[in-house]
């Protein structure tokens, strides 16, 4: 489903965020990308979602080469990807319900079907009773769960999460990690960039350091 073939990403004035990265993620897999801050985890996820373009090699998502994707095709790619950001990127002037509704409004879903899906997604993350509240009223963990609900409401086949447990206490981080495992169990491909890959014990692991893969599988878990 996802294939990185000798991928590199260089930012001006010559900073290598990723260098010669190759790996594959199969459909339905749970993959944890580990590494310290600045290792290149976020850049890797951005390449998959076409937020950035590689400066070398090829990134293939469902057979599509992201590097040569036309600008007009990017929105359609992103509609099939659920994105969870470290800083959540919530809209604080909209209600919880409206935040989760946004991807469906963009995709042009009929209002009734969209509302049903929004409530199902909010129910899944335990926020349905607070659908009318504003995001500012939520705790950090709840805001992260809201971001997850928004990412999965369109029922994407691929879920990308960038440090979804950062800034959360240990118990809340475990709860959030459990939600991702649940989506993986129902067949969603989940790729999580995390400084603490022990939260995802059943995931295949890749560890990055200074833009390069330094360990994979059991070696990375060690």
């Amino acid at each position, binding site marked *: 489903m996802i294939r990185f073939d000798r991928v590199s990403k260089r930012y001006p004035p010559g900073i290598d965020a990723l260098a010669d990265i190759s790996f594959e993620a199969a459909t339905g897999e749970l993959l944890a990308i580990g590494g310290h801050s600045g290792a290149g985890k976020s850049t890797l996820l951005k390449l998959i979602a076409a937020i950035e373009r590689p400066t070398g090699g090829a990134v293939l998502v469902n057979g599509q080469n992201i590097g040569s994707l036309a600008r007009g095709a990017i929105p359609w790619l992103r509609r099939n990807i659920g994105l969870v950001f470290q800083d959540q*990127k919530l809209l604080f002037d909209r209600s919880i319900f409206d935040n989760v509704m946004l991807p469906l409004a963009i995709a042009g879903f*009929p209002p009734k079907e969209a509302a049903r899906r929004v409530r199902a997604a909010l129910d899944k993350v335990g926020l349905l009773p607070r659908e009318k509240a504003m995001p500012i009223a939520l705790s950090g963990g709840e805001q992260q769960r809201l971001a997850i609900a928004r990412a999965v409401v369109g029922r994407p086949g691929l879920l990308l999460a960038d440090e979804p447990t950062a800034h959360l206490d240990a118990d809340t981080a475990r709860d959030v990690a459990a939600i991702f495992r649940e989506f993986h169990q129902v067949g969603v491909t989940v790729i999580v960039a995390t400084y603490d890959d022990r939260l995802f014990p059943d995931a295949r692991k890749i560890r990055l350091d200074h833009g390069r893969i330094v360990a994979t599988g059991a070696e990375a878990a060690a």
Partner: protein
Amino acid sequence: MIAWLRQHRDAVALALRRLTGAPLNTLLSLLAIGVALALPAGGQMLFANAQSALRGLAATPQISLFMAVDAERKSALDVEARLRRMDGVANAKLVTREETLTRMKAGQGVGEVLDALPKNPFPDAFVITPRDERPEAMERLAAELRKLPRVEHVQLDSAWVQRLDALLRLGRTAVVLLALLLGVGLVAITFNSIRLQVLTSRAEIEVSRLLGATDAFIRRPFYWFGTLQGLLGGATAWLIVLGATAWLRGPIGELASLYRLDFALAPLAAGDAVMLLALSAALGWAGAALSLRGTLAGDSA
């Protein structure tokens, strides 16, 4: 198609929310647009009224022919007979010096002055309706009339109307120029409003792009914002012109009655009002398009 219409409906709703979300800013923008558009719209209304009144005055152009003051009645009757035989004259009405004196004494408040005069100062006169109303034909006829015996003076009564008409045409051109200038002003106001809207919606635009929004989806509410702001600005201008018309109708009616004119100030014509609304909406859309080209062109995420 249904999804596309639904997205337009949502974009209109969002644009209205943004308009009502900052009521003071919206009110000031609408007033600025309204006042700017009210000037050419009001000018158009006034010139339309003036031209309509002028058409009424010039509907039957006439020539006044005055006999010499010392000409006898016999001369006047002789001229009358000649006038009836002339091809270019459709009708000729003799106004005797006695009739003129009586009318002047009755109407103009100068009776005492006229009574004090040793004799009637007015000549016999004719009011002539020409068969051909074209200016050049009337000039030819006037020249012919001047050759008649004992004729002192021939006056084309429509000449001043033609001069005023030319002046009004000039005024109307000035209104069009003013409309063009103020139209640019409307585009500038919308340009700035949209630019501020885009800047305050940066987070929303960024999130929408990350969630798969197309350029059209992101731009649509701003286009609607510009169009609605222009339309409401046009409606404000229309209301200003309507209010001014109601206010001026009384004083203008009084002025017209002093000149014995049957004239009432008409409001902006329905066609002109529709044109005003359509143009203001189109200019709002154009301002939004220019602004989005400048502020969203660089976004590629």
